[in-house]
């Protein structure tokens, strides 16, 4: 009852402590949902993904050995689940452009020009290859540092830097072309 840190809760949950597991979910649901939303761009999809992640964690948590911060590890699981979910769905819906979904993003309050640019950037981000898109979302969206993002994507820290710069190039091309339909 008295534990606080994620690692303490995880340890207890691994030993079958239901309350600890429930606490973990309570604490991280918001982050799971947020990240899922960034990927799917729809509230209902994001909620579905978040539920899937919660259920998945029951089995997955045994495999967590403290190699990364729990939150980073969870980011990784969430992103993978979101990607799989979305792939399935896109296939199912015969939708080709994931960017369409991102129209669901509400327009930013304030300067309309800024919000237009933001919306363009979002669409371009949505068109990035999965790995690049993940890196961008983790670092620029969730504010993770490169190490944390690397842990989430299970790659080297340098790879994240490379992906970010690659993503930036793609975004430039995309924005320069301005050919977003």
């Amino acid at each position: 009852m008295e534990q606080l840190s994620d690692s303490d809760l995880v340890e207890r949950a691994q030993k079958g402590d239901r309350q600890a597991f429930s606490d973990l979910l309570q604490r991280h649901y918001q982050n799971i949902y947020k990240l899922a939303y960034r990927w799917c761009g729809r509230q209902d999809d994001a909620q579905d993904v978040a539920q899937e992640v919660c259920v998945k964690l029951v089995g997955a948590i045994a495999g967590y050995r403290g190699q990364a911060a729990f939150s980073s590890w969870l980011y990784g699981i969430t992103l993978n689940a979101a990607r799989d979910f979305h792939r399935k769905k896109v296939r199912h819906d015969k939708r080709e452009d994931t960017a369409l979904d991102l129209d669901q993003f509400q327009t930013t309050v304030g300067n309309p020009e800024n919000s237009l640019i933001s919306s363009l950037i979002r669409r371009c981000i949505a068109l990035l290859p999965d790995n690049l898109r993940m890196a961008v979302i983790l670092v620029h969206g969730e504010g993770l540092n490169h190490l944390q993002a690397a842990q989430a994507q299970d790659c080297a820290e340098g790879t994240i830097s490379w992906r970010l710069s690659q993503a930036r190039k793609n975004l430039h091309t995309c924005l320069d072309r301005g050919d977003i339909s």
Partner: protein
Amino acid sequence: MKKTDLKDSDIQNALNSDQIPAYEKTAKQQAIEAALQQFDEQTEKKFQGSSLIQRPILITANIFKKIGDWIMNISYSQMATISGLAIAVLVVALMPQMQEQIPAIKEQQYSVKSSSQLRQKTEEIAAEEEVAVLQKRADIQSAKKPQPQAAAVQRKMLPPVASYQYAPTPESMANLSAMPQADYDVAAGGGGVGVQHEVNAPTIARMPTKMARIAKLEAKSYNRSRLLGAQQMAEIAQPLNRVADHIEHDQFAENRDRFAKPQENPVRLTNKHPVSTFSVDVDTASYSFVRRQINAGRLPQPKAVRIEEMINYFSYDYPTPTVANRPFKPTIALYPTPWNNKTQLLHIGIKGYSHTPISKKSNLVFLIDVSGSMSSQDKLPLLKNGLKMLVDSLKPDDTVAIVVYAGAAGTVLEPTSVKQRAKIIAALDRLQAGGSTAGGAGIDLAYSLAQSGFVKGDVNRIILATDGDFNVGITDKDALKGMIEQKRKSGIFLSVLGFGQGNYNDRLMQELAQNGNGIAAYIDNLNEARKVLVQEATANLFPIAKDVKIQVEFNPEQISEYRLIGYETRALKREDFKNDKVDAGDIGSGHTVTAIYEVSLVGGTGQLISPLRYGSTTKPRSKSEELAYLKIRYKLPNETKSKLISRAIVKDDQVDDLNQLSSDIRFGSAVAAFGQLLGGGRYTGDFSYQDIIKLANSSKGDDQFGYRAEFVSLLRLADSLK
């Protein structure tokens, strides 16, 4: 758009989380429920194939859960209910065989448990506990008898499920609960059953008749209390809590508020332990929490009760010292214990020097939790109003900055002088739960802002407000405490304000505030916000002494036993008293601190510990008439070497009649009695809430703000809930 135009900040803006709509609360609930169900199933699987004893217990647990879920939440899928009942039937069918083995096994377990208890508490085992253990044994014995009846019930119960191939309706459950109750009145119903570990074979035997009721209890421990009336909840909660104290791995605690409380201070033999040492504590969080629980219709968990914080919640009109360099003056009284006519209370009251803080400037940084859970009315909105009141009470030169954190952290308001009040208020108004700003860790940010406005000698303080979701960037709590301690040494202090319920992490709050030279207060309503943030703002913001430790040496010639009421979390080692490296609590301007010992005088009859048959090995050396000797160590705010105040406690301090005492002292003892009663009342004998009400009513004194009157109404409420 040109290549050079794309900045990181553009990408960040595009991904700004303000644009993410909040999730639906029901979605979160569903997700967590789904996961927990899976979790239960997995846990069950894990234990499959292990010993016979565990198996039936786990099955029953599962039944209770499922039936509980079903009663509480009819929309649960039909499949689940059918399977739930099917397992129930299975167990009932197995019962005859199980009953033969299990009571014996269980009884063995109980005797193991009680003997280990005895070992642990050789000196101090409370009669009450022994009775409880005996009671449980008696239960087991009597439960062996009603087997035939249990069998009859089984027959009654089997056909419905076997023949009706439909999902049972609530009415059919009602029928179940209406079945003959006769001998089955679950004696343990209020106590053992609600908690998983206490589910035992006799319970299984009683199950058919009391299934609905047990399921309710079980459901309660699954936090599904919302459908139970407040009265019922209170009925259930109290014994449940007592049992929970005895259970180490209490997975099913009724509530996620976290409290740390070691064993209640035991009675000490003066011969063996003549010296008692502790740190002062001016926190008040426990009282507010207790009040909130009682107002919500339930008695608080005993663990949530820290008596010293309840006592220190109230201000007492002890005589004040007149000079700042000798910042306090102890007030001593020895008087008959209200709840025990054989013992005496030794009352030690300290009031801090009160100075008018004209010269000092305050640089405050509010570090505010804006995570989704803060959105309810008793959290962020209350906090905003409280902080506005505080801003109104600050001086024009003072500065305020605001940092928020949720998933990420950000500065909402750079240090702003209170002259620009409108700007500060506007920033507070803009705060919204759920949103988050990109950035580094909240607490780092708060400290760097505090550093930027740092003026040596002024008040540099971070005020952290949270409901317990403590994702400020550092997840390792020891690292966090270390950091706060480090910053404290550089002159930036930290206070913690707790809000809300259900997620409140009391222990961490307390620890953080202790490490940060600050107070931890729990704020449950606007009045409390005013009390903590405005009325006591000077006390809370201007420490007059730090690391204040109290040591009392009892004279074994005069006092044979003593017991410190409360301060369990503040105990210090005897040798730490003089060690200036050991941290202790601080006292602010005008603060009062009260400590109460219950003592047995030599020659009296109040001793709880029987004398040794072969006499004591240590002969008392002193023939002094002094009863005890009080020492207080403290450091002035800017000094590192401690100073000492000491005073002998003598017969002249003794008063024979409670009515000769000041109302402040009597009131303090009433609060002490209340705290002890809420904590289980181990030492308070027959003293009832009504007795406390009488005592408190006679000692309300001035009560300018009505706090003592509120205390009395709280007592009445508690009395009706017990």
